[in-house]
């Protein structure tokens, strides 16, 4: 069964149709990229998947269960991890504590009033950070971290949930090119190893074409192409959207 199934998703803001009937599915262990020019509706689409935005129409199913319109915190409970385009971490906590929070939440221990956090879920948090190459930064406050490192922290937070689905909105934005490839290779490795379905948006085409198993291309709210990287690369409609086709249409 597909991990995530999206069916005819729609969303308008005022008179603008941001997403117009998008359908797709992500399989376990698959890296699926969602690309498209600025304003194509990628982020809107993304925000509807984990409940941040309520779709006007359409269905979102996680492992067959309908999660359309559920609050983000309930979607998390069902096994979805999320990273943001503009990173959101807890600035007054260390890197380690940020990951511990995600683990504690996953283990439903956040209501506890007595045992200090410093003694809870420490080892698994450290292991997770080590896996992402962040062990050295564990005790630094997130408030003073470099942007690329924050992206890794977000990934660690998302993975702490032992997710079945990972939603990554621009996971490598703000990173050096070298780092980008490294992070995505790492993500792909973990995804395959644990059978996590990964859906990500990305601007960097090198990252997309070297790491995605499949690519969805969104333009003006609708899917215009879908398939393996090579096929998408060769698709004339995709070329037109990205490069324009000045010679044949005279520009628009």
């Amino acid at each position: 069964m597909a991990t995530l199934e999206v069916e005819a998703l729609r969303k308008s803001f005022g008179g603008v149709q941001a997403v117009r009937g998008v359908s797709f599915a992500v399989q376990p262990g698959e890296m699926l990229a969602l690309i498209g020019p600025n304003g194509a509706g990628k982020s809107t689409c993304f925000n509807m998947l984990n409940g941040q935005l309520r779709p006007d129409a359409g269905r979102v199913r996680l492992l067959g269960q309908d999660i359309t319109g559920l609050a983000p915190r309930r979607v998390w409970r069902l096994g979805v991890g999320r990273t943001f385009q503009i990173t959101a971490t807890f600035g007054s906590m260390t890197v380690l504590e940020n990951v511990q929070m995600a683990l504690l939440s996953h283990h439903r221990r956040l209501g506890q009033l007595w045992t200090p956090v410093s003694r809870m879920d420490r080892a698994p948090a450290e292991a997770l950070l080590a896996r992402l190459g962040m062990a050295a930064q564990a005790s630094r406050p997130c408030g003073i971290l470099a942007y690329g490192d924050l992206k890794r922290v977000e990934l660690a937070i998302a993975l702490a949930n032992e997710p079945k689905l990972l939603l990554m909105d621009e996971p490598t934005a703000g990173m050096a090119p070298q780092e980008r490839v490294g992070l995505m290779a790492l993500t792909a490795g973990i995804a395959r190893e644990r059978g996590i379905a990964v859906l990500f948006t990305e601007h960097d085409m090198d990252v997309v074409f070297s790491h995605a198993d499949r690519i969805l291309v969104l333009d003006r709210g609708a899917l215009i192409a879908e398939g393996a990287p090579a096929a998408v690369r060769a698709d004339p409609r995709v070329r037109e959207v990205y490069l324009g086709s000045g010679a044949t249409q005279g520009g628009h």
Partner: protein
Amino acid sequence: MENLVLQALSGLASASSLFLVAAGLTVIFGVSRIVNFAHGSFYMLGAYLAWTLVTTLPRGHLGFWGGVVAAALATGLIGLVVEVLLLRRIYRAPELFQLLATFGVVLIVQDLALLTWGAQDLLGPRAPGLRGGTEILGLRFPDYELFLIVVGPVVLGLLLLLFHRTRWGTLVRAATLDREMVGALGVNQRMLFTSVFFLGSVLAGLGGALQLPRESVNLHMDLSIITEAFVVVVVGGLGSLGGAALAALLIGELHAFGILVLPKITLVLVFLVMALVLVVRPHGLLGKAPGPAHGGAGSAEPVIGPAPRPLLWLGAAALATAVLLPLLAGDYALSVLTEFAIFVLFAASLHLIMGPGGMASFGHAAYFGLGAYGAALAAKWLAAPMLLGLAAAPFAAGLFGLLFGWFCVRLSGVYSAMLTLAFAQIAWSVAFQWVEVTGGDNGILGVWPDSWAAPKLVYYYLTLALCLGATLLLRRVIHAPFGFALRAQRDSALRAEAIGIDAFRTRWLAFALAAVMAGIAGGLFAYAKGSVFPTFLGIPRSVDALLMVLLGGVQTLSGPIIGALAYTGLQEQLVRLTDLWRLILGGIIVALVLFFPQGLAGAARARWEASRGDA
């Protein structure tokens, strides 16, 4: 019927006066985002200055009206000086610190006014040409009130013209919408802020000066008007002029008719309406939700680590002093020390909301007072022994904490703080007006400890043990997952929600827990004093708690503890040493805000970290 019409007219006159003050407050807030407590002081200064000018200048139209206008302008200049000397330096400080600074100004102005004009109420002359009355439906209505009814709409019209027809007004409106954008466009913000503050202060001064023929001028005008003005501004929507007008109308008429219909609950009525409006419209009648917060709103809160070693030693030394010193102390010193312990817990409980919770409460005394009343009522009506009374205290406070908190924690920022104030005022009014049960203003007397705890020394140790235990429990909670979840929703609501944290529930429970702790403090206070009074839930006590936390610093729990000791001790000493304690306390507060913007504990921490070179 005729009576109702006159009542409505007199409501309009009140609304008009209220609007003048509220308009100034809302315009200042809109542009500078400063919650200006001192606005009430400017109103009072306007009234005093007008009294001096009008009684000194030759009688007649010129003397009176000239005096009123001159008083308004003079108030504006005083506001301008305050802005340039104080507020300009703290626009980037956290909202609550600005509040603290303006409260320092309130204290200073109170004593300066006392020194200049004395303690007795001053009566001004009536307005020339408007001494008489006009017959309306066969009943006489004072001309001056009719004049006031006209003033409000005229000032509203002039302000709207100013804001919509001049370049300056356009800039003010733009700054109200997006301050940073206006700055980025190269507008001289300093001039804009200063001029807006001048205008706002003129309006406050005018509002005060125009009260001269209506009521006596006294030293309580500042705090009584500021609460009402805040209510109007919040009900109308912060920064909205039209909202302020609408809300002033609503509140003015509510006052006028409330007395006729429901004389028993007049004091509560206004706050009930405010609570109702905020529950239905969280940003006031005409207010808009603030845009997405700009990135640089505040530097990230520091990480909470284990207490540094020197702090542990300091704490141990303080504890040793607290345990051993009383053995040598007399009864008076024991009472003072008991209060110290109680206020440490009271401040620590507020800190949970303000620090880790990231919410503000202007009405935390409600839970202190509800605890005290819970204990006293149990003692009076159930003849409960002391321990049962002390158990009733946190129970009563916690119950209302759950109830009030459910509404308050849904809102954010100033709106949430004002809703806490509204509930506190409702609780206060009930204590004040439900005479049969609470004894009203006379309070409940004879709430004494059981005989075993009657010796002051024993009661002190009991208080110390409970307060210390509760404070340490709060510390434990802050370091536990729940406390971290509370900080998490403060740091990033988006991320907290994304990892499954229910921000509302977390804030709500924290609010209730803080109420329980404040209730324990209140219960102990009731037995320490032997009586409870409505002042236990009053605004001044809420402000005390706020000052303790802010003086100490909100970052860590050591802040409110140090703040409580410093503030209680300072006030205690100042009151004994000098009549001008407000002046000195206000001066100290202002100096602290200017030089230690992180509070005492924050400053000590910064120094400690700098000395170790790892800041």
